[in-house]
Structure formats: structure tokens, C-alpha cells
């Protein structure tokens, strides 16, 4: 199966623009990601410095302990009782200090991580609230979700332990090297020869590791996608009896997942012999050459012991780094994906000086041209005025531009040419929020949030009283079915709540729109999504909602169309006819033909 990229190929608002997260994939360190992350450290300076202070204390004590142990050994050998006891007390004190340092480090760096995570999370969410609908058309919910959830989770690793830990491991390493050099320069130089060897090994290793890591990531993504589809599409699979074919396909992606992981595991495990052998070589060098120096009286036994302890310490950070390698790589890639999202510019923004739109009733399109992407045109030179209180139905084939017209009034998208005005205000000149408060939109796909039915209706006007909510539900014709539910208005609905039928959801959405009481209604007629009974209730509710308001309806039903004050017939983005049902029928144009075709007999000779 080849990798494929969905979403859009058009203009701005893309999730692959300035920050190319694919390029970062597999890198342990990316300067741009790190640079951006560092900026988050500013506001948490005090916590950070306490944590860093703790870390320094901890590092100093870890480096100091073997040295002190060495001195204590010498005192023991010399039989210096007082000296030994003093050293014991010093070691104990140093370890106590190390304890405190460790505590500060864990606590405050932990705080730092959590504070940053909180900020990144809310920042991403707030940013998503600013992006225009075009962005959501081009990027699937699942992809965005995974950035806000998985990717943020992933950088937690990096923040909580990774980056600073790596930094301080390096500092510790250097400190150890310095102490060794001070204590015994010749032996230190000899022992340290293993370091370049290790560096070379690590360099070669990480090249392979990167490739293996990318392969594992891909394999996991494929397995998950396949599993997800297997579950979501199970009904189709069973009805077409494809279980065996699917099982085979899954087995093969699962096998690739296995192979990729084993390969990665082999690489990770390969680090063991390297580190162990180099540690042993280091230790052997100390034993032989150090031992010779002690025999020659050039070095004490204590220093020899300290050296041997240091050799072990030396490789600890290296091992840790290889263990954390995969996590750090993932975190880098995640960081890139997060910033990629945060860097998407909203296509539609309010002018800083934009005024609020006062209650308005009249909609006007003047020479409007529009397309969803720069190169294309869905609407051409539309001129149309919807008068206060008037109901205008828009009819036309799929792709004629009906929905575009509705989307322009609310400024979900912006015109390419011309103006859309509401009571003379250009919709681009007022704040989006005030504009949308004047316009009630009822869409084909009724959406409910997780929460009670009451909460969902109140979404229309947050400060509404319970009575007003019920009143709106009554007007929408939703009250009857809601009262019949066991928990009435308290019934939990939405993704994780009880399932309402499409018709019932639509009624709740209507109640929500009625409660909001907007002077303008844009209705994407949704009647086709419900069955006969609900349909009738809904038709009545629609009529009630429309009364006394300016209405623009994207009509699918001729019954709605015939009742409209005026009908606009769209064809390929142009208005071809405007008039009442009677006028248009008389004209015998496109409307007449569409109407006629719907009344034409069915596939077989009518028995009636």
C-alpha cells in the first residue's frame, strides 16, 4: 500500500507548510523545534532555575562521591581512624545534599513540563478556534486530534526528562573527565581513549537507528489504520463476506509491524555489547596501568577505586541516551507537528477596528464571485437582494453553488470579488462574532455536544432560563419526544450519550436556533435525512422558525420551494432565473424542466 496524502492541494491553511514535520521525522535533534520549545521556558523561569539548581547539585554530588570514596579508602588503608570517620561523615553529607538536589530537580522540572504542556494544549485549542472553515475542510478531524493529543503527550517526555537530562549528562561527563585528568593525567588520557571509539560507534549506530525508527512508525500507523477500518467497516465486511481477505491483509501489515520492530530491537540491543565491551576495556586499562602506577608508588589505591567507579559512570548517560533515543526522536517529530499547526495562519481575520454588527435584516450580494480555492470559481457575478422578512429558496443541481452562497453570508469563506452586505454593512468589515449572532444556520447534519439536551438547546443563548429552553423546544416541536425520554431534558446526548435519531437531533438543533432568535435564518434543508413522521413535525417547525425573519433556504423539496416568496435557480455558479413559483413555471425555463422531471413517472409503468 502506498503512502498517500489526503486533504487539500490548495492555498493557505495547510498542515505541511512552513514547518515540514516529515523532514524532522527520525531526527534526535532539530534546532528549529528545540528553538521554539525554548521560548516556552521564559514564563516558567523561576521554576526552571530551581529545578536546574537542583540538577546541578545532584550532578556535583554524583561526581564527587567516587572521589571521596577513594580518599576514604586511602584513610582506611593508612589506618587513619579520624580521617576515615571524617570522610564517612563528608560522604554522608554529600549524599544528603544530593537527595535535596534530586528532590528539587524532580519537583520543579516536573512543574515546568506540566506548565508548558498546559500552555501548548490550550494554545493549540485556541488557535483552532481562530482557523477558518477552509482549514477544517482540508484537514480531517482525526489528524488534528492526533496533533493536540498524541503529539502533545509525546513532547511531555522530552520536556519532563529528555532535553535537560541529556544536557546535564553531558555536563556530568565533562566534569568526570576533568576530575580524572586532575587526579591522574596519564591514566585519565589512557582511559579516555575509549570515548572516541564510543562516539564513532554511536554515530554509525544512530544512522541505522533512524531508518529503523521511521520504518517502525510507518508500520504502527498502518496497523492502526487497518484495525480502525476493520472495526468501523465491519458491517460492510460482513455483508460482503470479506472477513478472510481482510484477515489476510491485516496479517501482512501486522507481519511488517513485527519485522520492523524486531529490526529496531536488534539495533537497540546491539548497543549492549558495545557499551559493555568498552566499559570493560576502560576498567581493564585502569587495572593494568593504574595497578602498575600504584605498584610504582605513583598513585594511591583510593584513586584507583575512584577511577574504576568513574569508568562505569561514564557510560551510564550513553546507555540512557540509547534507551531514550526512540522517545526523543518521536518527541522531536511531535514538536514539529505541533508548531506546524500553530503556524497555520487563519485565512479570515477581523479587522482590528471592526465594529459589531447591529441587528440586521437585509442581505445583499453585489457582483459576488467565489471559489473554494484560488484557481477555481464556484460562483460568478451573483447579484441578489433578500429583503427583510422575505423567504428566498435556492434551487439547483449538486455543485451549482447553493451551499457556497449560504457560506458567504456567515463569512465562513470570503468572496473573491464583489461584496456581501447585511443591512449595508460589508460582512468583511464587521466582527465575525457579531455577524454570526445575527444569523441562524441550520445545517443538514445536526450536531449535538456531549451534555444534556437542555445544555444543547441553551447553546443557542447561554443565559436563557429553563422556561425559555422549554419554550423553544415546544416551538421546535421537540418538547413531546423530550418529555417522553426517561430523564427528559437531563438526558445526556452526543457522542458518548444516548443516541437520538437523526430526526430528533434535528429538532433539538432547531430548538437551539429558535432560542438564539436571530433575525436572519440560513437553512440548508435537511429534510431528506429523516423519515416520514419526523419530517412532518419538522416542516411545521421550520415554518414557525421562518416566520418574521429573513430566510435563505437551500431547498431540496419542491413543497418548500413552492411556498417561498421568491426562487433563485442556480446553474454552474450563475443565477439563471429568479421569480415566484408561478412566474417561473410560466417561463418554461430551467425551473420548469427540473420541476417536470421530478413529476415524471417512475422506472416502471405506473399501476395507479
Amino acid at each position, binding site marked *: 500500500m502506498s503512502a498517500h496524502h489526503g486533504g487539500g492541494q490548495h492555498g493557505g491553511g495547510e498542515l505541511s507548510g512552513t514547518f515540514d514535520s516529515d523532514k524532522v521525522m527520525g531526527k534526535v535533534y532539530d534546532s528549529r523545534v528545540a528553538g521554539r520549545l525554548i521560548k516556552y521556558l521564559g514564563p516558567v523561569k523561576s521554576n526552571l532555575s530551581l529545578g536546574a539548581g537542583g540538577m546541578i547539585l545532584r550532578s556535583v554530588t554524583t561526581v564527587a562521591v567516587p572521589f571521596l570514596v577513594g580518599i576514604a579508602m586511602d584513610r*582506611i588503608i593508612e589506618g587513619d581512624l579520624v580521617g576515615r570517620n571524617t570522610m564517612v561523615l563528608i560522604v554522608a553529607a554529600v549524599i544528603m545534599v544530593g537527595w535535596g538536589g534530586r528532590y528539587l530537580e524532580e519537583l520543579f522540572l516536573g512543574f515546568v513540563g506540566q506548565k508548558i504542556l498546559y500552555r501548548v494544549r490550550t494554545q493549540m*485549542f485556541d488557535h483552532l478556534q481562530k482557523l477558518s472553515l477552509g482549514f477544517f475542510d482540508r484537514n480531517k478531524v482525526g489528524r488534528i486530534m492526533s496533533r493536540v493529543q498524541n503529539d502533545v503527550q509525546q513532547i511531555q517526555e522530552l520536556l519532563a526528562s529528555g532535553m535537560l537530562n541529556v544536557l546535564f549528562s553531558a555536563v556530568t561527563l565533562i566534569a568526570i573527565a576533568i576530575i580524572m585528568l586532575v587526579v591522574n593525567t596519564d591514566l585519565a588520557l589512557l582511559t579516555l581513549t575509549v570515548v572516541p571509539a564510543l562516539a564513532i560507534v554511536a554515530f554509525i549506530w544512530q544512522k541505522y537507528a533512524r531508518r529503523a525508527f521511521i520504518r517502525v512508525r510507518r508500520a504502527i500507523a498502518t496497523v492502526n489504520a487497518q484495525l480502525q477500518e476493520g472495526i*468501523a467497516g465491519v458491517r460492510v465486511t*460482513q455483508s460482503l463476506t470479506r472477513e478472510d481477505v481482510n484477515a489476510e491483509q491485516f496479517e501482512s501489515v501486522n507481519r511488517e509491524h513485527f519485522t520492523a520492530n524486531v529490526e529496531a530491537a536488534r539495533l537497540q540491543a546491539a548497543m549492549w555489547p558495545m557499551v559493555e565491551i568498552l566499559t570493560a576495556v576502560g576498567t581493564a586499562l585502569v587495572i593494568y596501568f593504574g595497578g602498575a602506577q600504584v605498584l610504582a608508588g605513583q598513585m594511591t589505591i583510593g584513586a584507583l577505586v575512584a577511577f574504576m567507579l568513574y569508568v562505569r559512570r561514564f557510560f551510564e548517560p550513553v546507555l540512557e541516551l540509547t534507551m531514550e533515543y526512540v522517545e526523543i526522536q518521536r518527541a522531536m517529530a511531535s514538536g514539529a507537528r505541533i508548531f506546524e499547526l500553530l503556524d497555520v495562519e487563519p485565512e479570515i481575520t477581523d479587522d482590528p477596528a471592526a465594529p459589531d454588527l447591529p441587528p440586521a435584516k437585509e442581505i445583499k450580494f453585489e457582483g459576488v464571485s467565489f471559489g473554494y480555492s484560488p484557481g477555481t470559481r464556484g460562483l460568478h457575478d451573483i447579484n441578489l437582494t433578500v429583503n427583510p422578512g422575505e423567504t428566498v429558496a435556492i434551487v439547483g443541481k449538486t455543485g451549482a453553488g447553493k451551499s457556497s452562497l449560504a457560506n458567504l453570508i456567515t463569512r465562513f469563506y470570503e468572496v473573491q470579488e464583489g461584496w456581501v452586505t447585511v443591512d449595508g454593512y460589508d460582512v468583511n468589515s464587521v466582527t465575525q462574532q457579531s455577524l454570526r449572532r445575527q444569523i441562524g444556520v441550520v445545517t443538514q447534519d445536526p450536531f449535538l455536544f456531549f451534555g444534556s439536551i437542555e445544555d444543547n438547546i441553551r447553546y443557542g443563548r447561554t443565559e436563557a432560563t429553563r422556561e425559555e429552553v422549554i419554550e423553544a423546544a415546544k416551538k421546535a416541536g421537540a418538547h413531546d419526544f423530550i418529555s417522553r425520554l426517561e430523564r427528559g431534558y437531563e438526558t445526556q446526548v452526543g457522542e458518548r450519550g444516548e443516541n437520538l435519531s437523526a430526526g430528533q437531533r434535528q429538532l433539538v438543533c432547531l430548538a437551539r436556533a429558535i432560542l438564539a432568535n436571530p433575525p436572519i435564518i440560513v437553512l440548508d434543508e435537511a429534510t431528506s435525512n429523516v423519515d416520514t413522521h419526523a419530517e412532518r413535525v419538522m416542516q411545521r417547525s421550520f415554518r414557525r422558525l421562518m416566520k418574521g425573519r429573513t430566510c435563505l433556504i437551500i431547498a431540496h423539496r419542491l413543497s418548500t420551494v413552492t411556498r417561498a416568496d421568491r426562487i433563485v435557480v442556480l446553474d454552474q455558479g450563475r443565477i439563471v432565473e429568479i421569480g415566484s413559483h408561478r412566474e417561473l413555471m410560466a417561463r418554461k425555463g430551467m425551473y420548469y424542466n427540473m420541476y417536470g422531471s421530478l413529476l415524471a413517472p417512475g422506472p416502471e409503468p405506473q399501476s395507479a
Partner: protein
Amino acid sequence: MNILLRLMGFVKKYWVRLLFAFLCMLASTAFMLIIPQLISQSIDTVLADGELGALMWLALAVVGAGAMRGVSAFGNAYLTEVVSQKTAYDVRNALYDKLQRLSFAFHDQAQTGELMSRGTADVEAIRMFFGRGLLGMLQITILFVGISFLLVRLNPLLALMTMGFLAAVGWRAVIVARLLRPIWLKIQELMAVLGTILEENLTGVRTVRSFAHEQEESDKFSAQAEILYDEHIRATRKRAFNLSLMVFLVTIPIPLILWYGGGQVEAGALTVGELTQFIFYLTIMAMPVRRLGFMTNILSRTVSGGQRVLEILDTESVVREKPGAVELNDISAAVSFDNVTFSYDSASPVLRDVSFTVEPGQLVALVGGLGSGKSTIAHLIPRFYDVSGGRICIDGIDIRDVTLDSLRKNVGIVQQNTFLFSATIRDNIAYGTVGADIEQVIAAARAAQLHDFIESLPDGYDTWVGERGVTLSGGQKQRLAVARTLLVNPRILIMDDSTSSVDVETELLMRRALEELIKGRTTFIITHRLSVIRNADLIVVLEAGEVVEKGTHDELMARSGLYREIYESQSVVGDGSGEDFS
């Protein structure tokens, strides 16, 4: 424990590799224990003014032991990973296969996200146990016992002091892990809530924008994120306190060893080399002991994850093939419902005593309001659910007596919500007929009135659809489902058309596609297209799960019952146009 034993069943197959992994682990542990002995000996050799030659041999022995330790550690790590990945691979396959075959009743209850987490996180938890968990815990035990043995031989009291501290730390690590676990579970829960808020905000983006609710949404999200933050902070405090304490407890024996051990050296009861052994072994144990907490966490995650996975593997599909079920071949496709009763949860029946007979090749329209049981009837014929009472026969054979595969190959269903797979349009059409050639696919698409649209796409039949591909309209998806079913060419066809989204254009196309679709088949259709209903050979009118009327359009109109009532009220609403049954 029971769960762990059952999970062990999955690893049984790989016992040879597991055994080798275990042997490698033993070897690597042994070599790990040898090195401090060699170091100790070299120190004592130096102190005794020994020969350089002896030191040389000791140094070489250290290198040798290190190399052996490295190699065996590699073998251990690698083999364990292979076994654990193999196990995960097997469990995942079994789970996938099971999920594919569980009946609709199961999937109605289950949420995709929740099942996904079993297939990913829970399988991973099982893998972790067989990966690092099982042998890791064994290794810690062996190390602890081995070191205790070596040190007790040198000096029992000092050994007791050193190992006592380590045991205390290990115990503490386990306690802390238990202490932190509920907090982590709470955090998981809070994350899920946060996820829901986010998901709703994204899927409901139009609603949010229409009501200008962006600020409220942001407030809701950050309030929840703050609760999550607080919980994390709580965890951080507990972790910081306990972790630092443990590290302290692991290192504080050092001065003790120097003090008491130093005294022993002076008294001649211990050599300096032996004293260093204590310090080296302490360093070796420090890491594994702190890991104990992590290990016990793996264990409890494995138990709960394993339970969730086994739960699914143990679920028997309610719809099962009888032993000795026969193939359903060459049917003429007569269908009969004999006193069929059905309920989803045995509480309130959805269908009551439904009986009707359909001759081969007839067109049956199922008519009725919401919850009348139309769709249920459609789902019973391919045995997505089993009847609770009565029986359904095809050509006089009870559908429970035939194999599921042969039944479903003969019964095609076009469902309400068309699911598209992330694949090309071609693959989606050929979903039920693997290996169909492009001509057949095109023929099906043509018959479903979808060919022209597909050709208008830049990539034609190779266009990607589904989650990451091009979005199709409701009508286009429905026609794709029709093409998919046409290609299978079933003798019995069920079309659930009740919630299709239709505009004027699609309406016309669908009408033509339908004509093609029902030709030469026994067809059940749930629809509000009056033209279709009027032409049906049999109209079954349902109300609250019961058949209230059945007959042809003319018969039912003559009877002035429910059908006529609905029909006429619709015609009035429809402004006399009567274009639709709604």
C-alpha cells in the same frame, strides 16, 4: 493470576526462544557478578605488591567477562523482544479476526475508539510484560539472591546492612507504584474527557462558529485542561518525593560500608578489595531496584489489559453457524417470514409476529415510521442478528441451517450509512469481489450511475477515498454502495434507502440505478420514493414492530387504512405534486 496464566498460553509456542533468552539472561547476570570479583582481586593483588603479570591476566579477564556479558545481554534483549513481538503479533491477529466476525449486536454496543484501545494499548501492555516484565523481574530476583550470597560469605553483618537497605528500597518502589497508579488512571480518564471536548469542537466546528461560541469553547477546554494539570502536579509531587527518597536510600549504604567495613579491614576481617565489592555491587543493584516499581506497574497493566483483550477473544458471536450447516446454492430466492419476533435486549420486542411471503423476483417495499422495525427486518435476512422467535426461510430453508458465507453471498444489502474504506474507488467497488477486473468494476459503476462522475475525477478509478482521500457526497457514496453490491450480484437484494440524502440530480440518477439494481432479483426496499413504492409487488406497512397492512398499492389504497392515510397526507403537504412519500 488466572489471566497471566492464560496469557502464557500465547507464549507457549515460542518456548525454545524464550528458554534461550532465559539462558542468555542467566549468563549475562553471572558475568555481571564476576566483574566486581575480578576488580576486588586486582586491588588485593596490587596491595600485596603482586606482579604486573597477574594484573595483566585480571585485566584481560575483565575484558573477556565484559564481552561475554555484552553478548549475552544482547541475546537476552533481542530474543525477548522477538518473543514479545511475536506474541503481540499473534494476539493482534486473533483480535482482528474475532472483531471481524462478531455480530452486529456486539458492534452496536461497542465504541470504535474503545475497541481500538484494546487493539493497541492493551496489546502493548501484554507485549511489555513478555518483553521487559517477565525476564526483568526474574533477573532482579536472581541478582539480589546472587549478590546477597556473595556478600554474606564475605561479611554477614555488612551484607545484611547493604542488602537490607536495597530490600527496603525495592519494597518502597512497589508501594509507590501502587500509590501512583490510581492517579495515572485518573489522568487517563481526564485525558479522555479532554479528547471528547476537542473532538466535538472539531466535528461541530460549524455549529461553534454559527453561534459564535469560540470563547466559551476555549474556556471549557482550558478549564478541563487545568483539572488535568492539577492532577499531573499531584503526581509530580508524589513522584519527586518518593523518587528522591529512593535514590537516597540506595546510596546511603556507601558511608555505612566505609565506616563499618573500614573497621573490619583494620581488624583484618576484610580485605580492601572485598570492601570495594560492597560498593560495586551496591552500584549494580541501584538501577534494577528502582525499576521494581515500574515492573509491578507493567504487571498490573498487563493484567488489566490482558483481561480486556481476553474478554473480546472469549466473546462468542450471538450469530453462529450450526455444525453441519449446508451451503445455500442456486436459489430461486423466495423469502418467507414466519411469525418472526425480535428484540435487541430481550426486554421490549422490536418486531412482533411478523409474517409475509415473497415470491422469487418480487419487489417488496417496507413502509412505516421511525422505530417501526423496517431496518430490523432488513438486518435479519442476512443474519446480522438472529430472530428471537419464529423463522425466516429462503426457498423454504431456515436461514439458520445454512452457512453464513453462502447466505450472505446470496443476500446483498445496501446500507443506510455507506462506509468507504481508505482505498481507491476501484478497490471500494470491488470490496466484495476481490479480483474483479476493471471492466466488471466499470460495468457496475455504470449501472449505478456513478461512472460519469468517477471519470470526471483527475485520477478516475484510482482516486483515493475514505478517511484521507477525496470526500464524496451522500448521494455519490450511496451509488458507490450500489455498485459494490451489484458487482457481487446477489439473488436477494436489500436496499435501506430511508435516510439517503438526495438532491434533485441524485434523485434522478438513483431512480435509474434502482431500475438496474432490482432487475431479476428478489428485492426489499426501505424508501420514501413514492414511484418505487407504488410499483412494488408487495407493500408491507409496519407500525411499532407489527405488520398492520400488506398488499399492492391499489389494494392498500382501496382499504383506507394507515397506508392510505400516510399517502394522502403526504400528497397534501407536497402541494399536490406528490413527488415524494414525505
